[in-house]
């Protein structure tokens, strides 16, 4: 059965890289069963397994801005990214996965929305995020909730 997925990406041992996972944790248990909440530190082709048989997917991840101070949470739709992935020689990301699934006749989600949270240190081993990044978790969770609620029929809320 097609379903909706909230997918938190990151590594909770690598300081700020945990932020996608922490936001996903905040969203567990608040939506009806049609909305699954997963988190993973897998990447590359492993993400394909998560996307199969999904109607809509919200990906929550981090990004490293040139300057952390003043950077904001970003939202975009994968469609807005264009076909960059299909022409990249780099390893597998969401863009390539979309093209692979289309090429292999596998149904790619109708909508993939991306919520990207700025981080400053995703390379130091630690279970503790930077205070400034931790402070963004609630705002990111609120925005994620709003995005997913817009996908649901009113009766499901």
């Amino acid at each position, binding site marked *: 059965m097609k379903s909706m997925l909230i997918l938190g990406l990151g590594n909770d041992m690598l300081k700020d890289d945990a932020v996608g996972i922490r936001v996903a944790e905040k969203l567990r248990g608040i939506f009806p069963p049609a909305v699954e909440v997963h988190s993973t*530190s897998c*990447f590359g082709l492993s*993400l394909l397994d998560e996307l199969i048989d999904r109607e809509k997917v919200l990906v929550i991840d981090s990004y490293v801005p040139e300057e952390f101070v003043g950077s904001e949470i970003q939202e975009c739709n994968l469609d807005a990214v264009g076909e960059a992935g299909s022409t990249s020689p780099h390893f*597998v*990301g969401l863009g390539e996965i979309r093209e692979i699934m289309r090429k292999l*006749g596998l149904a790619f989600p109708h909508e993939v929305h991306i919520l990207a949270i700025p981080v400053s240190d995703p390379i130091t081993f630690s279970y503790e995020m930077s205070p400034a990044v931790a402070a963004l978790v609630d705002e990111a969770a609120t925005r994620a909730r709003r995005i997913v609620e817009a996908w649901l029929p009113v009766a499901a809320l």
Partner: protein
Amino acid sequence: MAQRITIDPITRLEGHGKIEIFLDDSGKVSRAYFMVPELRGFEQFVVGRPAEEMPQITSRICGVCPTAHHMAATKALDDLYKVDPPPVAKKLREMIYSIFTLEDHALHFYFLGGPDFVVGPKAPKAERNILGVIGKVGVEVGKRVIGMRKELRDLISLLGGKVIHPVFGLPGGVSKPMTPADQPKFIEAAKRGVDFALFTLNVFTDVVLKNKEYVDAITSDMYTHKTYYMGLVDGKNRVNFYDGRVRVVDPTGKEFGVFTAREYLDSIAEHVEPWSYIKFPYLKKVGWKGFVDGADSGVYAVAPLARLNAADGMATPRAQEAYEQLYATLGGKPVHHTLANHWARVIEMIFAAERFLELASDPEITDPKVRTLPTEIPTVGMGVVEAPRGTLFHHYETDEAGLITKANLIVATQNNAARMALSVDKVAKALINSATANDDGALNMVEMAFRAYDPCHGCGTHSLPGSMPIRIQIRDLAGNLIREFSR
């Protein structure tokens, strides 16, 4: 004017990396550097944590080699607690490990290394990617690769929990037995795995070995280094991924030494360079003589080709046939051609699948006694396995309560670091000059020099929106940007 070319990040690697190529005043390469990113503070992070957590913690260092770290850590815990797992636990571990190796090697062959050979090193860059591979081998083959990979990962999860969060290895055994009801699933999947691996050898034969240009590239001098080779072998000196002794052969193929995990510090030392975060291991008894090959240099290699070179053969019949074919084709042992790693990887896929089938079919594999409870006080533990990318050492020391006081890991990509640096430098000197600095094909062939090793920088990168740009910068030696472009 002297120039610097930067390829950052390196394409299709698991994690970021960077190459810098310095051109001298005459436009020739004076030196090419292969650099890896830094992950900070692992040793401090684990100090004070219970040693039993190490199979879970280390498997999450990155999303690439979780099972390899999990297994090396589990074996180190066996040693730490001085406990010998029951025979069926060792078989289950080796079976899971064979499944993992088969899946990982397939991923590299088709999707990471594949674009170099299946599509072609000088193919248009828009085609030199996973989609290009699918276009070349066909949609049905693409579906088969994706399907096989998912089936193998599901089997690992069935017995060991999530691949990235395994709950399988414990000191003295494993967490749960295989049920008789599940055994047929494993046997049938293993049969499909053998067919898949043999099919992949046919693909390699048709696409690569029947293409003279590719074979010439494999055997060309710029992709050749005469170094030492290291790999885990069983009691008959045959390749083994899970257990055995570490064997080292010299550049002529003669046995140089054999050691156990406990003895790794007697055999390996590490050299530090100011331009790289990675330490460069070398053979202690030969010594560090710089980034040079030959019998007088302690530089050695790990990974598929090194494993085959360090062994006397394969422990399963179809893999042995393929092993003999490789050496008959490439002029006998040892083979020093870096790009032959791709061929060796396919041979190891066959071995992994055959070994998976052997173990899944073993009548003892459903024995419920899967653990010997440890009773000794922990002190020091060391474990070694062959990760897909090469030999992987884990070393822990604890207090009497089993809390980590020291941890040291030597991962496969570290073991290969010096030889990879040699490879990048040699190919860059052969192909790059001021006239070819814009040549995408030439730069890709520099990257091929290390991609054959299947290096993993383990930074757990998961890029959004789906691909990372390649930035190439050409600078003079004073750091002034002369030209910049992306691909």
